[in-house]
């Protein structure tokens, strides 16, 4: 399964733009993986998800101390 729209050139330039370049030796494999993921998304296209809210459980309570928080 593949879309074949994702080229190695596209993968390479996107990776550079996103700040994590992909070494040339990994470009072919990376392009295949990214292409496969887009193909997966294309499979979802027939679903009518209008009005569907994703189940995101997030807790706004302050339950961790600052020391346990994310480093700046």
């Amino acid at each position, binding site marked *: 399964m593949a879309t074949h729209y994702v080229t190695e050139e596209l993968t390479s330039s996107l*990776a550079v733009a996103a700040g994590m370049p992909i070494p040339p030796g990994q470009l072919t494999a990376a392009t295949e993986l990214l292409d496969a*993921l887009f193909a997966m998304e294309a499979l*979802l296209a027939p679903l009518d998800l209008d009005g569907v809210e994703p189940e995101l459980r997030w807790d706004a309570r302050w339950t961790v101390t600052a020391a346990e928080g994310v480093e700046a």
Partner: protein
Amino acid sequence: MSYQPSSSDLCELSVGEAMRLLRFGDISPVDLVQSSLDRISALEPSLHAWVKVMGDEALAAAETAETELRSGNDRGPLHGIPVAVKDIVDVAGVPTKCGSPVREDVAPAETDAPVVTALRNAGAIVLGKTVTQEFAAGVISAPARNPWNPDRIPGGSSGGSAAAIAARVCPIAVGTDTGGSIRIPAAACGVVGLKPTYGRVSKRGVYPLAWSLDTVGPLAATVEDAALMLNAIAGFDPLDPQSTDEPWQDATEELDRDLTGVRVGVLRDHFMERVQDDVAAAFELSTPVFAEQGAEVVDVNWPEAALARAAGMIINRVETVAVHEDAMRKLRDRYGEELQVRVGANRLFPSAGYLRALKARVAIKRSIQRVFDENRLDAIIVPSLPGVASPADDTAIVYSDGSREPVAFAYTRLATVFNCTGQPALSLLNGFDLEGLPTGLTIAGRPFQEARVCRIGAAFERATTFRQRRPALIGE
């Protein structure tokens, strides 16, 4: 004379068998653990299932268990039973290396993961840590090999745990399942693997792969063993944000019952579209067994099954990026190439696509609930994998039309469906292909109804004789 594995070795006992002998005083926990350690020593040069064997600690714990049992301090069915732990799960005093050079110098874990604490509280004895694919992101689990044929992979990512169970080193092991990582190696190695409902078992102290899919559960010699282990590790953990506070039903409660009054749906959509011939044949032979045990068996359709795999894979891959991208910026060269490629590529997938997959998961969950409700089902059955364990030097599934599919896609194509839905799924041995390699059958149930899933699995296990066959590595 050198050690030769034998079916009379104590380590071959299931939990169910050992617990009875332990209580009659016919065997001791020390005997059991020593038997496991002897088998590890004998097989490890071929099996490569362990990253750390905790022999001295295990023997000391076994002596304590022996004293407790003799004094009447019985902690329950797992008391004195050896258990293996996948090396992404914290065991106090042991570094959790996750199969990665990135963590080669990591400090030993300070505390046990709650799942390990629960096992110790139940009297189980930790034998050591088992091989996983790097950070549990894959299905090959090198260097571990398959006891049915050491030229084959054990599947993954809980491959070391499955190989250890299949080689009858110990009867239970801890695995984790994000895209199939309990059920895939269970099927490839011919053992039982139970992915509980998402949120049923605490995943604190377990290195994440994809937070909204990660599930901890048992690999085991028998369905009863898996149920006994699940009883020990299941439960609400208020410190795990994804833990669910649902009422618990003893997973062994229905094990002795036949399948009268149970409705089982046979699902072929997606699951039978591209499978090896021997796997398809074994699956078709399995379906009448459920009816013979009293179940009402009906064919059902679930057109969204392929979408469940797609959404599950997107969620899995993108969350894995989020887990690793910061470390990979600093330590890229210490990651294995497969994970470097995976994170590098999937980092470029758009966030809108990830959120669409999360929305799709909601719709897909509703769709499988409709299938269960409209057909009044207790469970559905499907093949666990489209093919048997692949050769270690050519990790692809080859189909009868000559086409090939890399195992990373083939194995997850069926298994990831139930990570997307979150429902419990049990893989168990369903016969062998013409080369003697195991095939697997999956029973997926309603959320939080692990007891019913185990009942159906146990009835199938009782009605078949597959477990009597022994892997090549441990001889006839």
